């Protein structure tokens, strides 16, 4: 081997090794940084990410994965919009964020100062589809809005398959919807504003009341036969497992994929540990914890319940609509206008 060849071979080896070394160093740096931080300050609604039970399991799994002994300090937080507003204010005032990791939807994360991370370089299990918004956010769970129903009142062929099935006179006065018109704006993205408005004007005659997503006991009690649309199928599934006569399903003609994003605020107190936790939650172990405690997971992570569910539904012919943070941001004003219009119709105004 000539000297030139030796040098060439060395260069190739260096080029192959360097990225790995850089990644390994970065991961090491993160772990070292997390060790120095010594704790994670976390806050979100107890109905998100498995609540207190989820937290305990995350703490164990996280420390085991990274060989750390960090303490998770969790405080129950307010609803997501209020929390997002809180973090934005804290950043503007130069205060540390009240959570090291924020969970929310597109509109919540969009106006927040966030830390950008080279996720795919540092964490091999994180792939490009799991990342959005210039490496600032990760899709932690996929939500599939549909309807929640009382499995004693709505049985067999009566279970709606398509959205317009809920207009059946049988359900007049027995359906609930949400005061914030959950998911109808997304329906308008599929159907168009005109068709959705026409549908809502008929649908509102079926609706006798407005309840929040997650109030499954009101469906189980028979106060309402159905909630259309709900925010996700995770909540009715959890209620069903607890023994409630409740179930959830998606409409064949209105498949939607919406996401909860997880992100490290730029003013997080413990950014290294937070980055590691975000990555852990996208691992199979992290996703298993989320499914066990919250009945939710990301369809982008192989082998999760949600990836199986989405695949099954696609086989049934359901076409899912999904959108990125940027899609939502581009059309934010239009979405707000439509949502307010739909809220008014549902409220009977």
């Amino acid at each position: 081997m000539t000297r030139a060849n030796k040098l060439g071979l060395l260069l190739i080896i260096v080029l192959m090794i360097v990225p790995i070394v850089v990644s390994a160093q970065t991961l090491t740096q993160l772990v070292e940084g997390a060790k120095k931080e010594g704790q994670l300050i976390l806050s979100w609604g107890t109905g998100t990410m498995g609540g207190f039970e989820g937290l305990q399991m995350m703490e164990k799994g996280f420390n085991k994965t990274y060989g750390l002994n960090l303490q998770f300090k969790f405080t129950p937080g307010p609803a997501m919009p209020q929390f997002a507003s809180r973090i934005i204010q804290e950043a503007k005032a130069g205060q540390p964020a009240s959570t090291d990791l924020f969970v929310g939807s597109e509109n919540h994360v969009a106006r927040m100062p966030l830390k950008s991370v080279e996720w795919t370089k540092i964490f091999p299990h994180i792939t490009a589809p799991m990342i959005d918004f210039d490496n600032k956010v990760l899709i932690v769970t996929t939500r599939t809005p549909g309807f929640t129903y009382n499995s004693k009142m709505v049985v067999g062929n009566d279970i709606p398959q398509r959205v317009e099935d809920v207009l059946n006179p049988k359900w007049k006065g027995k359906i609930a919807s949400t005061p914030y018109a959950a998911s109808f704006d997304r329906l308008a993205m599929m159907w168009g504003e005109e068709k959705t408005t026409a549908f809502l004007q008929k649908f509102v005659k079926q609706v006798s009341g407005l309840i929040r997503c997650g109030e499954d006991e009101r469906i189980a009690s028979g106060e309402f036969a159905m909630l259309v649309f709900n925010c996700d199928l995770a909540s009715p599934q959890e209620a069903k497992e607890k023994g409630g006569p409740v179930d959830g399903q998606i409409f064949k003609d209105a498949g939607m994929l919406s996401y909860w994003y997880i992100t490290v605020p730029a003013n997080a107190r413990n950014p290294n540990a937070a980055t590691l936790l975000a990555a852990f939650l996208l691992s199979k172990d992290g996703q298993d914890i989320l499914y066990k405690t919250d009945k939710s997971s990301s369809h982008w992570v192989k082998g999760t319940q949600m990836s199986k569910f989405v695949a099954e539904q696609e086989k049934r012919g359901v076409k899912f609509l999904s959108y990125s943070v940027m899609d939502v941001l581009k059309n934010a004003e239009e979405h707000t206008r439509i949502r307010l219009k739909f809220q008014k119709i549902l409220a009977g105004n």
Partner: protein
Amino acid sequence: MRGRWLFVAISAAGLLPVVAFLLIILWMGFWQGSPGEPVVYTLKHYQTLFADPSTYRTLVNTIGFASTTVLVSLVFAIPTAWLVERTDVPGKNLIFALVTIGALLPTFFTSMGWVFLLHPRIGIINKLLIEWFGLEQAPFNIATLIGMGWVEGLGLSSIAFIMIVASYRAMDPALEEAARVHGLGIFRTLRYVTLPLTLPGIVAAAIYIFTIGLSAFEVPAIIGMSNKIFTFSTYIFYKIQPLEELPSYGMAGAVSSLLVVLALLLSWGYFRMLRFSHRYAVVTGKGYRPRRVELGAKGWFCAWFFLGCYFLVAKFLPFVLLVWASLLKFFQPPSWAALEQVSLYNFYGLPWNLMLQGARNTLILMLSVPTLALILCLAISWTVLRSGLRWRLTFDAVAFLPHAVPQLILAIAAVFAALFLLHNAFSLYGSLAIVIIVYTISRISFATRIINNSLAQIHPELDEAAFVGGLPLWQVMRKILLPLLKPALVYAWLWMALLCYRELTMASVLVTSQENVTLPMIVWGLWLGGSLNQAAAANLVVLAFMLPAVTLYLIFGRRSRFTEAL
């Protein structure tokens, strides 16, 4: 009057943050974006508010709901207060205990419970009545304004009772005796003597309850929304908390401003009454010896029948529902099938470490907030009723305003002040101190109503005589006014401590870490997250934690009655 200006200065210092917060709220009503974003001014929130026909429908709903709430709460509170303080009805300690414990039950359980009892489709009582009498449709519907007012009024009857009971305690029975000597029966004496003499207390309680009704959230959210009945609280809530977007604090500020105007209008009548407060002075220098009306055995039976019915529907039923909910994985009406699912599952999963931290913070709040509030409010009430200052009623108007503003908005204004206006001088954000300050401010209305009522019943001739004798104001306060006000002050202190325990909405904004987490915030967090049953379990644990405070309340109550008898 030596020392007068010290009291006026304390009053002014206490009311200064109230004015500041209210100005922030009014300012907020003109913001385009959220707090912390560059301020762009707009009138669109007011335009939207006044141009939207649903605003007026919501206003009518809110007034209907608040009025029913007042009516229901007074129907139970006035007779109970009269029985406890003006008669020899037995079991007074038990009555106090039941009223107090009942006030600690969160309204969201009561609301769900009443839905299960009186909903036209699933209500157990409705179902039974339809079955027994062969009715075609359900006779009761809880999802109406009257139904909502019934549930809210029952819940607030404890607060109304506490506000009214001190007035009955301080009344001179000689006036009632004189009425009876002149041939008036017990009911005519009540109508022409007792009720008019305690009118300031009753009106103050009515206005106070009415304003709670204006901003009450749980009952309108759970019962009202199930029949698409919006009140201002639910209207604001969904403006502040849309599902997908950032909150619209501008609209919330505009609606709050409207509520402040409404509260000022309400207060006007009350202020007029205060101007003539000397008419209601029943504690004079000529003799003060409260005596009880003897009811006799028949009267005792009637009294306890009334109290029994009241405690059954307002206190016992919600408590049973709370226990029931805590033992189930899934909230459902009582049935044999449900009974088989009973377990302690919800208690095992509670965040015990966090609850201990919450207990510590809540205890600090329960000791500091009432003490601070009483010091400030004593000074304010004295300034309003005794100082003789030309603008003294302005002090009372300002003291009442925090109550008119939805507490959520008050807390948002406080956070804004801590983050953007005071951050260079004080590190308040995220601390327990900011919670203490905001809770104290929010209690000023309550405490001034109670102290005003009692101070109005003490004739100025008592303190005037002391001033003539050369005593400075602080000595007059210590030797004359404080001993006479003691029952009211003890009630107010203990009740404010209990209100600290109940406080949820402000905590959701002010609590940002484990450093200032409170016990109710943990319960609220569980409920908001959909864990209704675990929230019930947490609430029972919190009730157990509250037992020493309730015992304290009873001991103090008994002791002050004992002192009085001497």
